[in-house]
């Protein structure tokens, strides 16, 4: 079947088996290996991507279900300021140990920050509830997200865009 969708900002068209899962199309057909398979049952969140701006677990979605939709993986969010700040904060605060859940964690965190609400620890914990991390006990992840949120709250987006890389 023919799947037409927007992937990381580019219009894509691909002929796939109708049973193929989104995660496999992203990894195998487009080489987007930030998307990790952890549980096959939509429970661990390692495969989280954005579909039309919302976090979705790509291991439990047929690729055909994103027909005409917009899909963004971690690779496609490379230039997003919020994501840059999140990544820096994860690195600084050791928001990862083995790094396997990290892509999904970053996507869920990005969605939280993009919603632009004030983020206390409880809200952060709710936002990443669908992403399991077996290494950190979530402490350093919550800290990473909070620090990124604090930076964003202190700085307007325009300012961030101007400063760009230095932040």
């Amino acid at each position, binding site marked *: 079947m023919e799947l037409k969708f927007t992937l990381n900002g580019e219009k894509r068209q691909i002929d796939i*088996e109708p*049973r*193929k899962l989104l995660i*496999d199309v992203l*990894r*195998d057909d487009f080489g*987007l*290996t*930030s*998307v*990790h*398979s*952890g*549980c*096959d*049952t939509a*429970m*661990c969140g*390692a495969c989280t991507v954005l579909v039309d701006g919302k976090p979705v677990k790509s291991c439990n979605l047929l690729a055909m279900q994103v027909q005409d939709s917009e899909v963004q*993986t*971690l*690779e496609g969010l*490379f230039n997003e300021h919020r994501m840059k700040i999140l*990544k820096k904060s*994860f*690195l600084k605060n*050791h928001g*990862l*140990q*083995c*790094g*396997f*859940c*990290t*892509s999904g964690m*970053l996507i869920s965190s990005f969605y939280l920050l993009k919603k632009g609400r004030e983020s206390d*620890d*409880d809200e*952060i*914990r*709710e936002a*990443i*509830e669908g*992403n*399991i*991390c*077996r*290494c*950190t*006990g*979530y*402490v*350093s*992840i*919550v800290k990473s997200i909070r620090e990124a949120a604090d930076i964003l709250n202190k700085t307007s987006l325009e300012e961030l865009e101007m400063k760009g890389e230095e932040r």
Partner: protein
Amino acid sequence: MSTFEDKVNGRGLFIDDVRLPDMQYVAFFRSEYARARVKHVKADFTSRDLQGIAAAAGEGSESDVRTPFREPILAGDVVSYVGQPIAAVVGRTKYEAEDKLSEVEVDYEPLEPLVDPEGAINSEPILPDAESNIIAENYLGKDFNVDASVVVEERLYIPRILTNPIETRGLVAHYDGNNLTVWISTQSVYSIKEAFSRSLSLDPDKIRVIQVDTGGAFGLKGGFYPEYAVVALISMRTGKPMKWIESRSEHIVASRPGRGAIGKIKLYADTRGKVLGLKGDIIVDAGAYDTGMGSFAASYIAYQLSGPYAIDRQYIHAVSVATNKAPLGPYRGAGRPEAAYFMERMMDQLAKRLAIDPIDVRLRNLSSSSFVSPTGLKIDPARPFFERALREMEYERYRGMKPGVSFFVLVPAASGGEGCKITVRDGLVHVWLGGSTHGQRHDLLVSKIVSNELGVDRGSVVYELSDSGELSKGIGAWGSRTAIVGGNAVIQACRKLKDEIVKEKGGYSPSMLTDLDKSVEVFADFRGSLNSFGANLATVQINELGQVDVLDVVCYYDVGRAINESVVREQIEGGTIQGIGQVLSEKLAYGKDGQVLTSSISDAGVLRSTDFRGRITVKIAEFPSDLPHGAKGVGESPTIGVPPAIVSAIENVSGVKILNTPIDPLSLTRRENE
């Protein structure tokens, strides 16, 4: 390895990211029964085509496994656990391989499985050539009679727990007609290499094992599995690279869980709480085959059962029993958490019986001088540490909250040493260790040590993952050992490099080093045992439904010398949540028919971000070891110390006696209802 910058950019190289030209995919057909005769199998690859034994490897596998308990790489006439591989198929894609599984034909004749380890001790053997289901049996210490005013006796139980790293097992194997190269997610390329050699009777010089980014392990990935041998053999048959990635459902039924231990413990004490003697049975549910850890675990728990306490008389019967379940493996702590849980629970029961403060009972049994237990466990002077721990954890401040407290000793698996290779090339210092990271940030450990020793900046140190083609001899990363023996190996390699440069050039400077093209390799031996003492304090709140909220966990752990304090702290935080999980929810459940009842990672009880919102307070104690960097171990401390402290707090707050984990909330409401 890929850097942490790579990982936050989604550019890690995990095993499922490894792709070779013409690579094919292996899928396994697994037993649907816990015990059955296999009358007929039709598949691409069966036990008739691929023969071999899964060799024991990794932590706990020092001794060779006895013949009747060795696991065949594909089941032959009998299957002995749900999930046991019976046949393998190959496809050009993952989808094709899985489709082919539906074409596999297996005829079974179901047999009555043995699921309960205690019952299995005296039952007919589950394996055809075995005389009994006893995989290993030992008596530790010496039998005794003692005149004791109080005898406290309990049966305690920790069920099997899945390791559940977010990345499952996986490998790519390629045989080019002469050499076998394996890329794998692992804790030790050396245990894997040796096991390949033994399982497939291959010359070790023709095997190269390369570790790729490893997405967590927790004990799972130090061992060798039947699937690994099958994947390599299929590559040898076909000449094509073969990949296998475990699904989570395969992980649940067929990987090796840890824990699964029963302790029937008897404490003989005087009226003041001094323990005069310790007797007990340790029964380990080893599963259908021995993996090394299966036979090792029971005696290992018995050996360290008395923990930091000076108990003069001990007599412990340790038995590992075969049951119709997946073989046992190590899970973070591997025997240490079981021992500490049993002993700490017993100390609390003794305190309750005598109506003495549990802290006083513990202090009464700690010595201010060194002690060797009747089982051979060497303990440093323990009492001063724990007196200090109570102050550091501010026990008095928490007293009104009815806190639970635990004392323990972590004896890291440091013995045997570790290997290290350093290659200086193009101005960069590349470092390989025998045991490499699966999440512990060994990169920071290595760069700090190399920078201290050689005077180069940390940025020019490149931490590499293990590769048996680079470093020839190594051990592996488990048992809280890498900071200790891995760190020491890095120091020895740096010093050797420096000495050689001084000999060749008559002097040393960092810039002389980085101008060179040079390599050194060392194996830094280490014999002897270390003590990392630790203490925990926990407070909880329980609602009317019996749901437990863990409020505070305070950790006071001796790490020797913290090489990187934030990494130490983060290891403790991560392990603390695993410890809470063990108490509140983690369990691999089996039915009476041996079917696995746990169906997903959520069902297995792994904690999510919202399951614990309490506070973890980490206080690091530094009593350096005699090694040049003073390090001890910390990776397993929280999974040892946190569970008994939390259980104790729950018992104190609820008034309900707790012997087993995970705790059923209903059991905590019973008291009010009755």
